[in-house]
């Protein structure tokens, strides 16, 4: 039911459970391994640890196994686990915290395209206030590779008026800069 390999070999961080709990506001110690999360997860067969195993690993203080796992990046945030958990653990939200911890603490991320995408997305919103899909795709592909992928699809979308060529004027004024500054400041002190 839970991953024996990890439990036997990896170092234990006794403060990990508390830190995860504090930062996420979720309580993984309430998990009693009913497996509703893992059976409902659409991608659990593609994960190195399924959601109920991640809950157990957190309970056991297996920080490196959790933050270094592929599973936290395979999660697509569909919230099926969150609404089915009988112990009211918002697991999808808990995974947000785990991803943030993994990035902050420099754990290796095999699916590096995912954080690149989110960075480009939020960078654009910071300066424009809204997202411009075509520009996001351009910048994302420049950074992540595959700039010329799906050209036929892109061409058809532009031809059919489904992708605007030019972004609109910036929105949100100074508010957005202040929101980003605030978030940046808070992230540093956490």
């Amino acid at each position, binding site marked *: 039911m839970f991953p024996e390999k990890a439990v036997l070999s990896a170092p234990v961080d006794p403060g990990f459970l508390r830190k995860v709990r504090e930062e996420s506001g979720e309580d993984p110690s309430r998990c009693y391994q009913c497996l509703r999360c893992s059976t409902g997860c*659409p*991608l659990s067969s*593609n994960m190195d640890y399924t959601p109920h195993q991640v809950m157990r690993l957190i309970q056991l203080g297996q920080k490196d196994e959790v933050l270094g796992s592929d599973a936290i990046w*395979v999660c*697509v*945030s*569909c*919230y*099926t686990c*969150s*609404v089915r958990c009988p112990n*009211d653990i*918002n697991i*999808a*939200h808990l995974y*947000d915290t785990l*991803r*943030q911890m993994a990035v902050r603490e420099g754990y290796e991320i095999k*699916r590096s*395209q*995912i*954080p*690149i*995408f*989110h*960075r480009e*997305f*939020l960078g654009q*919103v910071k300066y424009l*206030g*809204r*997202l*411009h*899909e*075509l520009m996001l*795709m351009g910048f*994302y592909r420049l950074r*992540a590779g595959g700039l010329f992928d799906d050209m*036929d*699809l892109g061409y*058809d*979308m532009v031809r*059919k*008026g*489904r*992708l*605007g060529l030019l972004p*609109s004027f910036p*929105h*949100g004024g100074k*508010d*957005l800069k*202040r*929101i*980003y*500054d*605030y*978030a940046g400041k*808070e*992230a540093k002190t956490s």
Partner: protein
Amino acid sequence: MKLAYFPGCSLHSSGRDYDKSIRMVLGKLGVDLVEIPDWNCCGATSAHVTDENLAVLLPARNLAIAEGMGLDILAPCSACHQRLVIAEEELKKEKFQKALKETTGKEFAGKIRTLGILEVLMGKVGPEAIEKEIKTPLKGFKVASYYGCLIARIPRVKTFDDRENPTSMDRLVDLTGAEAVDWPFKADCCGASFGITQKPFFHKLSGRLLDGAGDFGAQAIVTVCPFCQLNLEMAGYKEAKETPSRTPLPVMSITQWLALAMGFTAKQAGLSSLLVEPGRLRETVSR
């Protein structure tokens, strides 16, 4: 009825036919939409994956502006809707109230709420009023209503539809004269932003939905989320390119479908901008 309208970034671009059809359909049903002035992106998945404060404060700014207008919000995109509803909840905490005031000078007291398109249509306007506007019933069509993840899966919040088996869109399809097929994948995930970043997972998830809808007898799929709509279309588009003998199901927004039944033409409903040809459907409705 008057609502503050939060189209979100998609509805100004890849989802512009969804936007157009919402305005057409709600116009006929007597709902006035006032676009929230100077609205900003809700931050979507990128914000909640990356930073708790951005995830709350980006949508919070829009909530505060709408509250100033004294109107409930219509947010048709399921991702925007979910982020706005979660921000409403989070803004009950003093920490975020203070942060909103500090960064934008605005306040949110929780006097308004955010509605999805299905709640507006089936909850506020109501089936009787919609039925009266059905001018060209789409009889003989079998349609899979696809809800996706986010419209009813918002933890700890009472949602308009059932989380496990939502039905409001099926009832809407039935009102148009078509038959809503009973299929088991109606609230499964389409792959979301993995359509861009993790293609193999995306094709696994979206492919299962396309095949499943066809297998249960649907001739078209209708959606509420612009991102689900585009993802399923992209999956079908690719399938048709790779295997020309296959004809993937057309996928459109529920309001495009509703517009057809209300007597708008296929062109007005934006069928010509679909990436997957709607085939027989277009011939039938182009009267």
